[in-house]
């Protein structure tokens, strides 16, 4: 049975080929807005900027998709997006859209690399099984051991779970597949 909740819509991480200079400038400004809870990731790398388009009036229309329904950072993110665009001298309207729903498959490759760099295990690209698959074995981001276990499905933020390495005994965060 096809899963109605999981869309085939893919991530977007920058202007389409042939976009005008203003749209490109907006993407550049957006790439400087960091997620307040995981400040190594920009909102573009997180995959929550769905589109930047020019309205007939010339104004930019920016669509942003929240991550978790209960993410308390959503309001702050929208505000920071608006501020960054205004600072770049761009006339833009920012709206939140919930469909299609955000998935961790939309986190860019550079975003995944940044998560790994700070010791957060990035989510596997398997959104079709988002949050339903049995918890997979993950390797310790610190020592590389495969001998790890999950301490809690719920970590310090809605998007992370807490694991522990049985070899080096260090706890670490895992970005949930969503």
């Amino acid at each position, binding site marked *: 049975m096809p899963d*109605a*909740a*999981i*869309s085939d819509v893919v991530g977007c991480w920058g202007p389409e080929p042939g976009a005008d200079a203003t749209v490109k400038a907006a993407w550049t400004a957006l790439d400087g807005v960091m997620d307040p809870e995981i400040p190594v990731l920009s909102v573009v790398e997180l995959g929550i900027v769905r589109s930047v388009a020019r309205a007939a009036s010339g104004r930019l229309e920016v669509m942003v998709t929240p991550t*978790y*329904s*209960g*993410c*308390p950072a959503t309001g702050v993110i929208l505000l920071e997006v608006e501020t960054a665009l205004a600072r770049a001298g761009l006339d833009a309207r920012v709206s939140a859209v*919930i*469909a*299609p*729903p*955000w*998935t961790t498959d939309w986190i860019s490759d550079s975003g995944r690399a940044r998560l790994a760099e700070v010791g957060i295990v990035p989510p596997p690209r398997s959104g079709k099984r*988002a*949050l*339903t698959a049995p918890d997979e074995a993950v390797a310790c981001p610190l020592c590389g051991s495969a001998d790890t276990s999950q*301490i*809690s*499905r*719920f*970590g*310090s933020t*809605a998007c992370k779970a*807490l694991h522990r390495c049985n070899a080096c005994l260090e706890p670490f965060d895992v970005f*949930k597949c*969503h």
Partner: protein
Amino acid sequence: MDPETRQALFGYALRLGDTSLVLGHRLSEWCGHAPELEEDIALTNVALDLVGHARLLLAYAGEVEGEGRDEDRLAYRRDVLDYRNHLLAEQPNRDFGHTIVRQFLHDAWAVELYDRLAGSTDAGLAGIAAKAVKEVRYHVRHSGDWLIRLGDGTDVSHTRMRDALERLWPCTGEMFERDSAEDRLVAAGIAPDPAELRAAWNARVAAVLAEATLERPADGWMQKGGRRGEHSEHLGYLLAEMQFLPRAYPDAVW
């Protein structure tokens, strides 16, 4: 959309929104009080998701109603008799086991509901459900795991889970009620058929209860009325706390 369908859709979104809001608030009462740190974080994370769903659903209800009420207005400026949540959601937390039983009975319903609602002919509800179903799938795994662990645990934990199940079971019948407004929505492909939900819920609940070594209570007399605004004595206290600030300082902004 004809006025009757619009009115039915408003009522439907309101019931779902109220149920999420009230249960989310109940879970938030565990913040700082759960038996261990990880559970404190887990229960409040689930609470945040539920309040998030409530915001989306109540905002949509207000939009469908078309009388200028936003999600805050609906959440904070209605009294007990205007609330349309399931009675299950407003039941007090009591102990951790009781909270888990309440949560599992709800989650098992929510996951089946949103899974189907994601295919609704109404784009607004479908969008909200597609987002919510990913989160409630995670919730039901969590509450189901705890149900098994405590049901199939010690004599004390087993007894407590059994008692909680007996106490809460009469609140479950209401989740599958159907009135003329829902008949209209089901016919239009907007809402799933509650009978289909009940069958799926029964199967899921039976499987988890069996693993938890808990006996499924018989479907006897069911407590109903929440969906029509007839609530237990517990909801008024919950709303008094939840609504205090916006009632004390109406229209305050910061």
